[in-house]
C-alpha cells in the first residue's frame, strides 16, 4: 500500500502523459473539425496535468487558461459558426498523405535524438525549492521579455501568411 502511494505521482504522470499522447494522435487522425478540436482540448488539459504533477502549478494553470480557455474557445466558436460539413471528412486519407508521413518520420527522429541526449530538468532554486510564481515572474520580466515580444511579432506574421494562403486558394476557386 505504502509502496503504491510512494509511486502514485509517477503512476499519475504516466497516465496523464499517455492520455495526452493518445489525444494528440487522435487530433492528427480524426477528420471532423469539431472532433479534432475536442482532441486538441483534451491534449492541452492532460499536458496541464503533466505540468501540475511536475510541481509547476502555475504553468499548468497557464496551459489550460491560455490554450484551452482562450485559443481553443475561439477555435470551437469558429467551427460552430462555419459548421464545416464538407465531404472530404469522409475520405480515408488526406491528399497530403506523403508529406504527412515524411513530417511524422522527421518528428519521430527529432524526439528520439532529444530522448537520447539528456533533456534539461525543471529549474530549481539553490536550496531545491520549487520554481514558483514569483521566481517565474522575475525571470520572465527580466530575461525573457524580448523573446516573448518577438514571438508575438512572429505570430502576427503567421496570421498574415495564413490570410495570404486563403486568398490564393479563393482566387484559384473563382478562376
Amino acid at each position, binding site marked *: *500500500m505504502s509502496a503504491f502511494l510512494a509511486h502514485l505521482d509517477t503512476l499519475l504522470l504516466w497516465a496523464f502523459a499517455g492520455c495526452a499522447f493518445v489525444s494528440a494522435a487522435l487530433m492528427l487522425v480524426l477528420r471532423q473539425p469539431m472532433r479534432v478540436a475536442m482532441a486538441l482540448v483534451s491534449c492541452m488539459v492532460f499536458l496541464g496535468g503533466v505540468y501540475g504533477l511536475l510541481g509547476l502549478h502555475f504553468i499548468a*494553470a497557464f496551459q*489550460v487558461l491560455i490554450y484551452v480557455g482562450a485559443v481553443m*474557445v475561439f477555435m470551437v466558436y469558429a467551427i460552430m459558426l462555419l459548421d464545416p460539413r464538407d465531404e472530404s471528412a469522409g475520405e480515408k486519407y488526406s491528399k497530403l498523405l506523403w508529406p504527412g508521413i515524411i513530417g511524422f518520420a522527421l518528428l519521430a527522429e527529432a524526439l528520439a535524438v532529444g530522448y537520447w541526449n539528456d533533456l534539461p530538468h525543471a529549474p530549481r532554486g539553490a536550496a531545491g525549492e520549487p520554481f514558483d510564481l514569483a521566481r517565474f515572474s522575475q525571470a520572465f520580466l527580466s530575461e525573457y521579455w524580448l523573446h516573448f515580444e518577438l514571438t508575438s511579432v512572429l505570430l502576427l506574421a503567421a496570421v498574415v501568411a495564413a490570410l495570404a494562403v486563403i486568398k490564393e486558394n479563393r482566387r484559384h476557386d473563382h478562376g
Partner: protein
Amino acid sequence: MIADLVIAVVFIGYAISVLMGFGTILTWVERKQAAVMSDRIGANRAYIRIPFTQVKLVWWGLFHGMADGLKMLLKEDFKPRTYDWYAYAVAPWVVFTPVLLVFAVIPFGGTITPARLWEPLAAVFGDKSWPMQIAPLDAGILIVFAFSGLTIIGAMLAGWSSSNKFSLLGALRAGSQMISYELVLGLTVLGLILVYGTVDLDAMVRHQSGTVLGFLPAWGIVYQPFAATLFLAAAIAENKRIPFDLPEAESELIAGYFTEYSAMKMGLFMFAEFIEIAIIGALFTTLFLGGYNLPFMSDAGFAFPGGATVAMPHGAVVVTQLATFLLKVFVVCSFQILIRWTLPRFRYDQVLTFAWKFMFPLALANLVVTALVVWWVGA
C-alpha cells in the same frame, strides 16, 4: 503517507457533499425566496406520507428537490438525430465537471491538526497539521479561471451538436457573453492581487484576518468595494442567470443551448448552474468577505481592536471556521437569488454593450487607480 491520503479523501468528500447539498438546497431556496419576495406561499405541494397513516410531512416544501431529482431520473432520455452524437453526449459533462473542480483550490477552513481534536487520532496522524483546502496550490486563483474557462466550450458544444437552430443561437450567445464577461472578471480580481501581493487563495484569506484603520476588518470588500460590485455582476453574467440569461431566454429561444436535452442530461446543465451559484458565493467569500474567518478572528482565536484577545480551543476554531464559511456562502447565494427575482432581462445587444463599454472600462480604471495607490503607499 496514509494520513495524507485519508485527509485528502475526507476533504474531497466534504467538498462534494457541500456542493451537492448547496445545489439541491438552492433549487428550493430559489422557489421559496421568490414566493416570499412576491408574497406567495411558494413551493409546498411535495410531501411524504408516513405509510398507513394520514400524517403528511411537508417541511416547507423541502421535498421538492427530491421530486425534481426523481423526475429527471425517470423521464425518457430523448435522443435527437444529430450530426455528431458523441459531442452531444459529452457536452453536459464538459459543463458540469469543471464547476466541481474549481472548488479544489478554495480554502473552506483554517489549519486542522487532528491530534489536537481527539487524542487517539495522534496514532494515525501524528502532530502534523493540514490546511483545510483540497489542493493548496501556489497558483490559486489562476486555477479557478483555468477551469471556469472550460465550461464555455461545453455550452458551445451542446448548442452546436443539437442540430437545432434555437440551440445554435443559444450557443452563439453563450459563447460571446461568457468570453466578454470572463475578461471583466479577470480584470476585477487583478486589483485584489495587487493589494494582497499573492495569487494563493489561502494567503489571501490570512491577509484578511487583520484590521484596517484600527477597527475595520481587513476584508477585500473594504479595500476594493468597486471591484467587489463589478466581480459579482460579471460572475452572475458568467453563470448566465437573469438579468443576463440571454443564452437560454425562454421567450425567445425555448431553452437556448440545451433545448434538445432531456432527463438527467438536462438535469446536469441545471445542476451545474445551481452549483455555480454556490461556487460564486465561495469565491466572493474568499476574495472579498474574509473567507472562513469571522471579523478579527484567526487560527488562534479573536484579537479585537483595542487589544482584547480571546483564545479558543482548536476544536471550536475548526467548527467556527467551517460554519462561518458555509454561512457566508449561503448569504451570497441568497443575494444572487434576490437579484435574479428583482431585475428584468437585458436585450442581447445591451448585454454585450454593458460588458465592453461599461464594465470593461470601469474594471480597467479600478485596476489603474489600485496600481497607483499601491505604488504610492509602497513608496
